[in-house]
């Protein structure tokens, strides 16, 4: 009998071309996704070094980071982004790489659009120069972020040299109640085990809560794996996955789809497979979450109080809590509910999918954004935007006083100039509340789409459960 293996180990070993010295494996890369910050420089450097593109058909490109999201945007609406976009177009065209440009139905934030297009499939290795590439694990892909040099390595060789990480399983058990979202569950998980817990590990999420989740919710959970410190987070594919995939643009059709599903079914973690670490999280008692500090682990229940560093025994932790409260302009031990906000942002590769916009619109319908608050809804992809507009969701957002914008990373990362002003406070459906993440001096509170809507209509951090639908 063969040794029981995990989902991760099965996919990993299927992609090993050669074992190199020092425990490093040469891995085949099935899918390489490129965005506008790295594509032009990557193609350019590669050409300068005299290397060609090994398998242009396995690479796909779309701009998302530095493009403007203003309605009616053009190439140079954000001039710095325009330069990158031109370089991306030229590089992709010369290499024969398929690119989805602005205005194309396929364009969007890579981690939203690629699953939508069916470019992400279970059992594949997928890389992209962005740490939130772990998102694609929600479909059962072995996906992780890489750096610029690794981009060139993949372009030139269609492989990567990687050391095999350890394995971790996070069991999410139980059923959640009404207003709770996948975002709240994963934020609470990070709060519980910390942003360094997953470092050096490939995480598999399992348990009854995971099985009950939709694919879009699974993508949200896997998206935040890197905020656990894990560059890989994945969920075993199942019938929910196959139903989601069936018929999408790049998904194999007819008999080939059947063959692929049969292959994917062999990838599940064996019953007796061992993980290096296991965690168990009960989801029943999780309430809507909001961050208070400058790390995703600085998270509390939205009806809780800002923690008091003086009660923290660890000196380094105490120092970092003080620094975080100072940056965030918060006093210790006050209720987080009721703190005034200036900005609300709904979008990003965490919560920019159609289901997120639907959830937000449902809560927002008939309400108005509070005076003094600027609120943006930025669909995660052109396809999401068009689908939302077919359902009339854009009218719900604009009637309430939200700006309805073009798809891109936008204010999650501020690479295109969409930033929160210094000292201003935002409630954001994104994934990072780091110092300066939404712009220099910006104060970010992470939460779910429902929590963002509650903040928008209240003008303060608020509990979405009290709004009712």
């Amino acid at each position: 009998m063969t040794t029981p293996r995990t989902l991760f180990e099965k996919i990993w070993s299927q992609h090993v071309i050669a074992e190199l010295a020092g425990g490093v494996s040469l891995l085949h890369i099935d899918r390489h996704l490129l965005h506008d910050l790295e594509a032009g420089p990557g193609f350019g450097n590669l050409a300068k070094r005299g290397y060609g593109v090994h398998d242009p058909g396995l690479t796909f490109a779309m701009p998302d980071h530095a493009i403007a999201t203003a309605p009616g945007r053009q190439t140079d609406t954000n001039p710095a982004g325009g330069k990158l976009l031109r370089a991306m177009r030229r590089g992709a065209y010369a290499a024969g790489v398929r690119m989805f440009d602005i205005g194309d139905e396929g364009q969007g934030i890579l981690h939203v659009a690629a699953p939508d297009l069916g470019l992400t499939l279970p059992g594949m290795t997928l890389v992209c120069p962005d740490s939130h590439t772990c998102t694609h694990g929600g479909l059962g892909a072995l996906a992780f972020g890489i750096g610029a040099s690794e981009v060139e390595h993949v372009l030139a060789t269609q492989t990567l040299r990687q050391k095999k990480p350890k394995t971790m399983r996070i069991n999410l058990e139980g059923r959640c109640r009404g207003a709770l979202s996948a975002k709240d569950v994963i934020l609470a998980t990070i709060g519980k085990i910390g942003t360094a817990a997953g470092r050096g590990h490939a995480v598999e999420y399992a348990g009854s809560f995971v099985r009950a989740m939709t694919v879009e919710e699974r993508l949200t959970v896997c998206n935040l794996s890197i905020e656990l410190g894990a560059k890989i987070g994945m969920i075993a594919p199942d019938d929910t996955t196959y139903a989601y995939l069936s018929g999408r643009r790049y998904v194999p059709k007819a008999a080939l789809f059947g063959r692929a599903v049969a292959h994917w079914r062999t990838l599940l973690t064996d019953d007796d497979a061992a993980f290096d670490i296991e965690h168990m999280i009960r989801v029943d008692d999780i309430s809507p979450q909001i961050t208070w500090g400058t790390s995703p682990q600085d998270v509390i229940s939205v009806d809780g109080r800002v923690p008091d560093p003086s009660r923290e025994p660890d000196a380094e932790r105490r120092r970092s809590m003080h620094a975080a409260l100072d940056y965030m302009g918060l006093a210790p031990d006050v209720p987080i509910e009721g703190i005034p906000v200036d900005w609300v942002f709904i979008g990003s590769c965490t919560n920019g999918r159609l289901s997120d916009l639907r959830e937000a619109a449902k809560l927002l319908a008939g309400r108005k954004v509070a005076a003094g608050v600027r609120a943006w809804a930025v669909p995660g992809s052109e396809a999401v935007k068009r689908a939302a507009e077919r359902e009339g969701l854009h009218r719900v957002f604009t009637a309430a006083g939200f700006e309805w914008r073009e798809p891109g990373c936008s204010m999650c990362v501020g690479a295109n100039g969409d930033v929160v002003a210094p000292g201003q406070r935002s409630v954001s459906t994104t994934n990072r509340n780091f110092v300066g993440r939404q712009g220099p001096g910006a104060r970010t509170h992470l939460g779910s789409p429902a929590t963002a809507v509650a903040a928008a209509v209240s003008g303060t951090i608020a509990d979405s459960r009290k709004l009712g639908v």
Partner: protein
Amino acid sequence: MEKFIRLTGVAAPLMRNNVDTDVVIPMHRLIGKQRDELGRYCFEPWRYRPDGSENPDFPLNQPRFRHARILVAGDNFGCGSSREHAVWALQGLGIRCVVAPSFGDIFFNNCVQNGVLAIRLPVPEVERLADDIGQADTPEMTVDLEAQHITAPSGATVAFDIEPERRQGLMEGLDQIGMTLKLDSDIRAFQQKDRGERPWIYRQEETENVARVLILAGDGIGPEVLAQVRRIVEWFIAERGVAIDLREELFGMSAWHAHGTLMRNETWNEILGADAILFGAIGSPEYESLPAEARKVDQLLRMRRELDLFDNLRPVRTIEALAATSSLRPEVIKGCDMVIVRELTGGIYFGEPRGVEQLTDGTERSFNTCVYTTAQIERIARSAFALARVRSGRVCSVDKANVLPETSGLWRRTVQALRDAEYPDVELSHMYVDNCAMQLVRSPAQFDVVLTENLFGDILSDCAAMVAGSLGMLPSASLGPLRADGRRQALYEPIHGSAPDIAGKGIANPVGAILSFALCLRHSLGLPQDAARLEQAVERAIAAGARTADIAGAGTPSGTTAAMGDAILAALEKGN
């Protein structure tokens, strides 16, 4: 990459946990900056106060740590974003080694790629090193990668572990891509086997629709060159899984000989149903012997008109190996790479009224009319602008607005207005056609996308063809409007014509026809990667010495039409 063997330098303590790469280098500093400009923004949120002045409390701002080469840091250093800029920013600051209990996984790999040594040590040892540095008069440390130990300022030494391969890579400053490509035969063997097991990874079909491709070889050397094209098409069907339903019909004199008509209804229906037509050539002295009634309709013009093939693309590129075959000097044509976008269904060739009148004095008066509408100009201009976006972003629009303020004036105004409204990112210039003809032979490399109307395009594209050396090398595409099913019907043909003088000898150059099929892969089949694959195979075959007579040059041996096909197929095989 700079080798790392031993480093002695100032070490600075930064004993904070979870230092993320957004703090190491903020996102807004990534845009528009070169790698070597990032150092001054490293740790910007901590290093500077909001007013831009230095924060004296930040360790790296203190005089004793200002020129640090080594950083001693807290747990999970470099977590968060994958940006390699974080490593470049540290390098810009002078840092070549970071010692910490642990690192963000992606940051750690990025260090390896850039010759930065990341050392993992247990927490107590990192804390001892930080204390040692803090208490030293001169906080200088030595990191010896060869011996795998650190000497603290006090003289205390700490050994560290490192994977042998990472150590070797750092010590030798190796190029990882070069090392990996030594294993390329293993990579290709893996892919070959995997393609059988998981074909869905390698063959991504956007639709299940099979494209109908029709070969019309036509007259003169058409059948010889299209025979080679057919082999290439069949290779893509068999080896790349390209979904093509390939058909062939007789056209021109061969149709006359077989069926007694130049265009059977069956053939015309095939033409109407085809997604793409691979056309050879039309023209033969034999037409003179046909009855006038049969000759009345030019079947190629009929296809252009009926299929509304308004968008004619003629790429012209210098191939360095063939520079000597051009009638222009090599330094004039060097680096030339342009596409002429010609309007093909309007202008004076189609305008009404036209005619010849008898005058009372027995002489004649004849006239043609040049007609263009805004819509006709807009649709061809859109094609040029879209093409410019994936090339250098420049369009030169050619007209004669100084003498023809009506048609050429409308042309110029319409092109400019469309650019301003929808393509502001594209650089547009205008040129008079007489000047353009001169510039094409004077300095052709200045052009990228040249947009022009039908008559001017006809003349200028022949003129530009000489830049490439031989007419036999040049492809063209003629595309119709976007249909409701998302496709554009198109005809692809080499520009060389039927060349009756060499027809039937097996020495014609098939490259123009083969590169026309590459255009077909790109524009009709939506397979840019396969188009590039074919174009690169042609270049490799020519670089390796494949020649037909027209491009052989004086005294150089030349091969047959079929030998050129063999060489390109061999290059495709090798690159697959």
